[in-house]
């Protein structure tokens, strides 16, 4: 009886994923075996897990690990993104506790779900096989459907979960069909093997099946990163989901989507570049413009940030279209700073709301600057960064994305991006106008900052300001992580 030779396993390649999923399962069991009204300790345990994982990510830097017969590759590119996911998960957990307690939906399952979603994102970032990427994407999506509908008693949250689920499953169908056609055209699901097939067959560019597969995959990924015209779910889901989860899903899944998108398109289909760059050019312009123009009309601040997140996906697509080292490093730098600024802004939104009254309208912020000057300064920093005004990190990120596009010869794309960015200043500043230039209507006396949220705000402000003022170190890291 001959035995089947096992492929090289190499657990080092999936170390962070393993740690996170083991901790998630342990938390799930602790949650049912140690009954307690206080679920905060689960949050602390998951934070410890995230910190441990973060150290393995740092420890793995610079030593690429390939495992599982080439279906997982933990290179610097994957590690940088894993850092982004861990940061966004940790910040979201920090703001969850107070919110969930206030809304009386303090279920312990929240933390395992966040960890599993993070695990899925990590798998997407390091997957070098269409199968691994698909599994990571689904682990992420299924956890997020539940997180979006986490407030079981709130109809809005139910709706958000249901909508996200139906549209997410729909888009998965397209992504999968694209993967199936690419498998059929090239005979493999390994990204490296697809790349060598496409490189060896000069006619591959005219292979209709390959092209259709590519377009369908682009549709699937565009849905995940919320690019127009596949963005329709975003505002509804962001508005209805519990605010900390909105913060989480506006950053992590978007970054994970970009990681997989970039890896598949840049590594597997470089010879079809001319085709997909045109496609993404149109997508980028559409996404930026639709996101920004619609955001101008929003009264609800969660919806406004949802449309702004669509616009930000557009800016990041600009760096993707550029496809050079500067643009790709820009994507990574931008996603990291976006994690800090966006989750920070959502932390303030959590604070301003009270039970049953989310106070999500821009008018609710009237006079906030006089009542809580420190929090208002934090909010202003985040909004400045989102608008791309120096010295915040958002400015440096945008600068790199657009200069990548200019270097690659996409002058018009960069110009459209800058114009869009200028338009976006209006709706970010409107919130500040309300905070500082209107008389307070409310006393904001219900507002209480828990130590966890304070920590989150401190980290977020530091994460926005430090790379904004001294961007050198992070940019160097991002440049070392570029795939090319």
């Amino acid at each position, binding site marked *: 009886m001959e035995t089947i030779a096992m492929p090289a396993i190499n657990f080092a390649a999936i170390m962070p994923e393993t740690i996170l999923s083991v901790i998630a399962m342990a938390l799930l069991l602790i949650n049912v075996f140690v009954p307690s009204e206080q679920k905060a300790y689960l949050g602390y345990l998951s934070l410890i897990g995230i910190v441990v994982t973060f150290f393995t990510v740092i420890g793995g830097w610079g030593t690429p690990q390939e495992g599982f017969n080439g279906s997982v590759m933990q290179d610097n590119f994957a590690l940088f993104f894993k850092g982004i996911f861990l940061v966004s998960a940790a910040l979201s957990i920090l703001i969850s506790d107070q919110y969930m307690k206030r809304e009386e939906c303090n279920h312990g399952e929240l933390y395992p779900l966040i960890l599993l979603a993070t695990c899925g994102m990590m798998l997407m970032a390091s997957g070098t096989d*269409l*199968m691994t990427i*698909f*599994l990571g994407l*689904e682990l992420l999506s*299924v956890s997020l*459907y*539940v997180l979006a*509908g986490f407030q*079981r*008693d709130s*109809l*809005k949250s*139910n*709706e*958000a*979960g*249901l*909508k996200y*689920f*139906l549209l997410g*499953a*729909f888009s*998965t*169908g397209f992504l*999968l*069909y694209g*993967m*199936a*056609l690419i*498998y*059929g055209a090239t*005979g*493999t*699901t390994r990204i490296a093997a697809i790349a060598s097939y496409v490189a060896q067959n000069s006619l591959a560019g005219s292979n209709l099946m390959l092209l259709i597969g590519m377009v369908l995959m682009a549709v699937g990924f565009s849905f995940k990163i919320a690019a127009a015209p596949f963005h329709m779910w975003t*505002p*509804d889901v962001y*508005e*209805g989901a519990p605010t900390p989860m909105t913060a989480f899903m506006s950053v992590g899944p978007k970054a994970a989507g970009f990681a997989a998108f970039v890896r598949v398109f840049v590594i597997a289909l470089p010879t079809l570049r001319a085709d997909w760059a045109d496609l993404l050019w149109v997508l980028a312009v559409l996404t930026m413009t639709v996101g920004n123009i*619609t955001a101008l*009309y*929003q009264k609800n601040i969660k*919806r406004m940030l949802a449309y702004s997140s669509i616009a930000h996906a557009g800016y990041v697509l600009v760096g993707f279209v550029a496809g050079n080292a500067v643009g790709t490093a820009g994507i990574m730098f931008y996603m990291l700073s976006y994690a800090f600024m966006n989750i920070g802004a959502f932390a303030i939104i959590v604070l301003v709301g009270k039970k049953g009254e989310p106070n999500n309208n821009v008018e609710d912020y009237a006079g906030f600057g006089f009542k809580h000057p420190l929090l208002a300064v934090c909010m202003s920093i985040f909004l400045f960064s989102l608008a791309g005004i120096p010295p915040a990190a958002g400015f440096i990120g945008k600068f790199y994305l657009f200069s990548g596009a200019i270097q690659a010869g996409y002058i018009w794309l960069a110009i459209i991006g800058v114009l869009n960015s200028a338009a976006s200043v209006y709706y970010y500043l409107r919130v500040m106008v309300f905070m500082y230039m209107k008389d307070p209507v409310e006393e904001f006396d219900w507002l209480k900052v828990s130590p966890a949220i304070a920590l989150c705000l401190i980290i977020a402000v530091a994460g926005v300001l430090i790379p904004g003022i001294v961007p050198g170190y992070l940019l160097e890291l991002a440049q070392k992580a570029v795939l090319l």
Partner: protein
Amino acid sequence: MVSLHSYLILSAILFSIGTIGVLTRRNAIVIFMCVELMLNAVNLTFVAFSRYLGNVDGQIFVFFVMTVAACEAAVGLALMIAFFKNKESIDVEDVNLLKW
């Protein structure tokens, strides 16, 4: 022998039926069944290619798609139950609280 083309055309037709169903149906469960139809059309494509290419990767992919579809079904049913409990309906026309 049925040729690869027949399988591909069949799965493309099934996929299109599923897509049209998602876009036109109003009952959330029926919409989800249409999504399942799309996923199974993809499975058919994978298996047909796998057989044609003599390569087992496609069949492994089908295993995972099936499992994932089951997980999605479970989560989807749970979300629909939660929605139904609050709204007494699973018609997507009633999913109307969130609008621009």
